[in-house]
């Protein structure tokens, strides 16, 4: 097997707090691998260890065949890392930031331009604008350009689309798709479940523990509870009401609907219950879960 990443029994503590506990993950070359989980779950700690910025307390991480502690210099040349916080220089212009990163990696912008053309072309009209003055979507494009300019084999992206609008997010992920097609391995964390759905496999990390690793499709296929969507005029009132129903044990808002898991009874019994309580116009239907439903179910049941 040709692995881009291999973590074995990885653990890290900060004082009393266990940020990562016994993490085992393998990522194959060419994979688009997503990491999801609540804030403070350990995603960033994992990424920092893999980017050789943090040393684990226990266990072992192999990145592109190199040891994350002994061979960290070899790793750094071969990966592109985009941290969660915008890490470029605010008071340098777009062009100067790119020049700075290419000089650090000792590469020629012209020669490697093909690597970043699809992203950087959109930034060209603002080449002389200071990075701090760019909008959120443009900042992310610049950060990605700087992470790509040395043609890395592995890209590590820590929540690259947080604060980015819905349209720019789609464009960003289209770019990731084409990088993947060119053979790049991508490790990415995200709070957006529609993005998680675009990964080959996703890992879910909560309280430093790995809860789940699989493809989005298997995650959805393994959802075994009867999931329903309900709607009525005031969905918050509906939410509060459904929380009181004895056969329902997982209720949450989902866009214009309220989703819930119904146990033990058929849905006509539920409709009867609505009628008896005079809840008015509520419609319900059984639905297929999305990755978002799976995430909520996994988190709630833990």
């Amino acid at each position, binding site marked *: 097997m040709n692995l881009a990443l291999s973590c074995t029994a990885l653990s890290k503590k900060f004082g009393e707090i266990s940020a990562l506990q016994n993490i085992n993950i393998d990522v194959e070359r060419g994979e688009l691998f997503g990491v999801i989980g609540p*804030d403070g779950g350990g995603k960033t700690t994992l990424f920092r260890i893999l980017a050789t910025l943090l040393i684990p307390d226990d266990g072992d991480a192999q990145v592109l065949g190199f040891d994350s502690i002994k061979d960290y210099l070899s790793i750094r040349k071969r990966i592109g890392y985009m941290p969660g916080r915008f890490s470029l220089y605010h008071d340098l212009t777009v062009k100067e930031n790119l020049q700075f990163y290419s000089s650090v990696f000792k590469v020629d912008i012209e020669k490697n331009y093909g690597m970043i053309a699809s992203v950087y072309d959109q930034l060209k009209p603002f080449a002389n604008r200071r990075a701090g003055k760019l909008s959120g979507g443009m900042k992310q494009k610049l950060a990605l350009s700087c992470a790509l300019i040395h043609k890395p084999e592995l890209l590590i992206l820590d929540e690259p689309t947080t604060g980015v609008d819905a349209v720019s997010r789609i464009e960003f992920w289209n770019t990731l798709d084409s990088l993947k097609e060119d053979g790049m391995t991508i490790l990415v964390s995200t709070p957006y479940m529609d993005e998680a759905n675009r990964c080959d496999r996703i890992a879910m990390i909560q309280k430093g523990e790995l809860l789940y690793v699989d493809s989005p499709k298997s995650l959805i296929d393994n959802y075994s509870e009867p999931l329903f969507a309900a709607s009525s005029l005031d969905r918050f009132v509906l939410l509060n009401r459904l929380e009181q129903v004895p056969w329902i044990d997982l209720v949450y808002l989902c866009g214009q609907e309220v989703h819930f898991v119904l146990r033990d009874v058929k849905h006509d019994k539920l409709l009867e219950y609505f009628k008896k309580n005079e809840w008015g116009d509520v419609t319900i239907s059984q639905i297929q879960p999305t990755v978002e439903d799976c995430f909520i179910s996994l988190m709630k049941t833990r």
Partner: protein
Amino acid sequence: MQTNNTAIIEVENLVKRFGTFTANDNLTFKVYAGEIFGFLGANGAGKTTTIRILSGLSKPTEGIVKVVGFDAMKQSESIKKNIGYMSQRFSLYDDLTVIENIRLFGGIYGLSNKEIRNRSDELVKDLGIENLRKRLVGDIPLGWKQKLAFSIAIIHRPKLIFLDEPTGGVDPLTRRQFWELIYRVAKQGTTVFVTTHYMDEAEYCDRICVLADGQIKALGEPSNLKHEYQVTSIDELFYRIVKGEDRV
């Protein structure tokens, strides 16, 4: 929600220019008391500029802007005292405890010691964080920090609160808990002006406004807008409106 026809924000022909760049290009809209008003737009569409004007931090170049009864051109200090504001970059101090943060902001908003005591007791009880009172804010989980920041932003009981991407980078479960909090406050009569990049959250608003190129492209109830544009979700609506423009 209990919206009535009292406008708490009135914006008429608002223009804001920075040099030759027009960030807000002739905006006209009202926000009514008790509403949850969603303010959407692409990055760089001009949302932040508008919010800064509405919250008294910046002055319009042209137009009439009235917020909680005060004129944004001449009475920005009165606006600041009468609104709440929370952004995704928390305004809380990490190296103060929960209770110290509450006291600090209560003091800034001019509450008496007695009021601060009563409201901080109420607040920690409401959030169920009595056990975290003496913990440094930097040490409590992000989800709690967010709820605390929200509660502190309304400690002076403002009629209107601005939430600027309050759920940015937050996981699906925590986002939902946060929206239940927003809804609770709106039920009690506080007007909520909120921005978000999560289009499912746009569905939770009473009305939404979509900004593109510094102009209002759509304004109305989510269900009416979906009907008007013949789309099934706000996500689709947003994509259609924003995709058309040349974005910065």
